């Protein structure tokens, strides 16, 4: 019997963006409110998993042509690179720096290298979750 996933797929197309937006929000808000790279990453992969459930592995591969193992490596590079970058300024490993910037529309913003570190965490978590789910799911 051929199944018809029209409702699921249509809903997914709408919901995925909401989840992704929420994930990005959680990621960026992490420094001030609950959240951060880890939960943000999990949430993002949750969105991708939803896509995976609604469609299938092949469609997803066309849709999001990522190699998630590279994503893990890039994430690790971000985290370690942020840590190592502080060595250039003659301060101990993993010393973060931040500045406050006053932008016309957004108001007071702080730019923080910890965000780059958290971006590494984010990428690693997404990469790890997706690698695990894809390898197990793709296995016969």
């Amino acid at each position, binding site marked *: 019997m051929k199944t018809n996933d029209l409702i699921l797929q249509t809903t997914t197309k709408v919901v995925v963006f909401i989840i992704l937006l929420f994930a990005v929000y*959680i990621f960026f808000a*992490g*420094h*001030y*409110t*609950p*959240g*951060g*790279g*880890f*939960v943000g990453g*999990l*949430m993002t992969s*949750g969105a991708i998993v939803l896509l995976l459930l609604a469609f299938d592995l092949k469609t997803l591969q066309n849709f999001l042509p990522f190699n998630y*193992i590279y994503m*893990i*490596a890039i*994430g*690790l590079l971000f*985290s*370690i690179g942020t*840590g190592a970058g502080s060595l250039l300024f003659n301060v101990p*490993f*993993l010393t*973060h720096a*931040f500045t*406050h910037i006053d932008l016309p529309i957004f108001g007071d913003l*702080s730019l*923080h290298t*910890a965000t780059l*570190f*958290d971006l*590494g*965490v984010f990428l*690693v*978590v997404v*990469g*790890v*979750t997706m*690698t*695990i789910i894809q*390898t*197990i799911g793709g*296995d016969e």
Partner: protein
Amino acid sequence: MSLLHLAIISPFLLGILVPIMYKLLRRIHAGWFVLPLPIFLFIYFLSYIPITSNQQTVIKSIAWIPTLGIDFTVKVDGLGLLFALLITGIGSLVVLYSIYYLSKDKEQLNTFYVYLLLFMGAMLGVVLSDNLIVLYTFWELTSFSSFLLIGYWYDREKSRYGAQKSMLITVFGGLSMLGGIILLYLMTGTFSISEIIQQSNGILTNPLFIPAMLCILLGAFTKSAQFPFHIWLPDAMEAPTPVSAYLHSATMVKAGLYLVARMSPIFAENGLWVWLVAGFGIVTLFWGSFSAVKQTDLKGILAFSTVSQLGMIMSLLGIGGAALHFDSINDSYFSVATVAAVFHLINHATFKGSLFMVAGIVDHETGTRDIRKLGGLMHFMPITFTIAIIGTFSMAGLPPFNGFLSKEMFFTAMVRVLEIGFFNLETWGVLFPVIAWVASIFTFVYSMILVFKTFTGKFQPEKLAKKPHEAPIGMLISPIILACLVIIIGFFPNLLSNTIIAPAVAAIMPNFKVDVHISFWHGFTTELFMTLGVIVLGVLLYKTFPKWRKVYKLFPEKFSLNRLYNSILDVSQRASRTITNRYLTGFSRTYLLYLFAFFIIILSTTLFVKDAFIIKTNNVSSIHISEAILALVISIGAISIIFAKSRLTSIILLGAVGYTVSIFFVLFRAPDLALTQLAIETISVALFLLCFYHLPKLKKREERMRFRITNAVISVGVGAIVTMIALSAHSNKLFDSIAQYYVDNTYEKAAGKNMVNVILVDFRGFDTMFEITVLAIAALGIFGMIKLRLEGGKKNENQ
């Protein structure tokens, strides 16, 4: 580094060169490269005789590990020089003999001479070292090189057996000796033998004195093949005959004697030492000579004969130790035993070396060493026969050979035991001369068997592999030289007395003025009649040997020491295998059982020994109703997991527990944790379900977990212990938390308001970095496990 050090090291250095020369000059027998070294060393050591005969010693020292008091100190005194001369002298002869004995084309000569040189250097190191640790190092090197030499024909099973046996026994003794050395160091604070001797009076009453003595004696007894450790020596006869002649008659087996002699000034003040050394010696003497008679292998007879003669020297050293009690009397009356020991040591090296070489010649020229097949060789090998006659008669203690002189002195010493008025020697001491006399009769009998069964009687050509003929002259040179020494020492014993024997005796008994004079004829004394009795009874026993041979059947093989040794090996192997199999079951549940059991035992013992279990309720917050309900829910969930019938129920209950935990996080105000816990719990339940779905169809049975009382006890125990520790840790808070710092500085220093996240990425970002690395490794591991399957895996799946 002095010339003396170089002399000890030189064999090792030459050992490096031998394989190279062997490969380069294939046409020349490798032994010729080796031969000059022992000769040169012999001459070099001869040059020390003028020094030592004036009772002087030469000490040369270089630092090795000065911080531990271990220096490579070489000391040449009378005793060391005597042994050095034996080692190099007989070493030269053995190398010469081996050149003709071992075939250039059939044998791996390079390894043989490397091992032999290794042994020679190690042996020189043993007898010339003044530092006990250095001595021990060389001691183990002799065990090791002897192991290599016994196993020289490693493709034979008996060689390997003999090598292993000698290794096990001598290393066992060697390690015990190391223990003794360390105990001596604890008592005196030095490893130097001369310094220990100077302090020897102070340590007599030390509680470590007796253990140290026993340990050292164990080392000496195993090395010198004393009863009951003699069993390795007959099996070591699987070595090539030059090796047997060198190691197992003249040098290595005397290392134990050397050690006893060297340690006498330290230990012999104690009666136990005298009794142990003399007692084990005399028992060995008797047992060795008694067992030698029943052997049918030429080298077997010689091996047991060596055991017996070593026992004789050992017992003499023991009795000689008793003389140390007469500090006041400067009389050589009691020191005759020590003189006899040293004298017989030399004599034994000469005649036993020649006899082994004779046995090797017979083996080489007829193809067998079995005396039942041999006979009537006198006409084919007149020179060998002459040498054998000289050697055996000297061994049996007949005039005019040197063995006669030392045997007379041996009897003298044994008879005088009765006059020593302490250590109970005046009563039980009577056993010594009696056993010694009986043993001498057996010595006579096996000596006669050795020479007459081989060389006289009926010639049996049909039993021999080869047609017998006289050995080549090169093979005969060494035994001829040794036989000549037997006669020369026999006729002119005083040649050696002042040059070699007196300094050696002086080294063993430092406080004595010893006047060594060995007289050939000393009148009609008890000893002479004892010797006459030995000869008469010995001849009688030899003539009637076939009739009383049955005596040996009375001692069935079942009770022999070899059986004991084999069964000890067997039993220990089997026992350790059984024990290992018993606890290494291969089931991880068993190992977890051990882990948790030890966890409980160690932690509960600590808790109760330290009296650390305290409950204080003054720092406890109040319990809210929602917390109580959640606790009830989580407990019901956790307990139901254990009793769940199906796995699916367990998985879902586990999920319930996880979500309840996240609600706990919400209640205890940890939003980050709650978020993460929710997400992670969802993923892990999904993975569990995946695992559940893929369980193999084969043998899939929905079955409840079986109840085991030990598992229940242990799990309850672990839970109780952890709870108790948590309670006492909470009640024992010693310091305030450092959390206030984070509260104060999260915004000030890190520009963040979410303290958890700031700690994770900023204050303690290092941890996070490696946690994401852990995640990455886990993902790659899963990817690898699933994607990379080797061929074998596929095959298994198909089956």
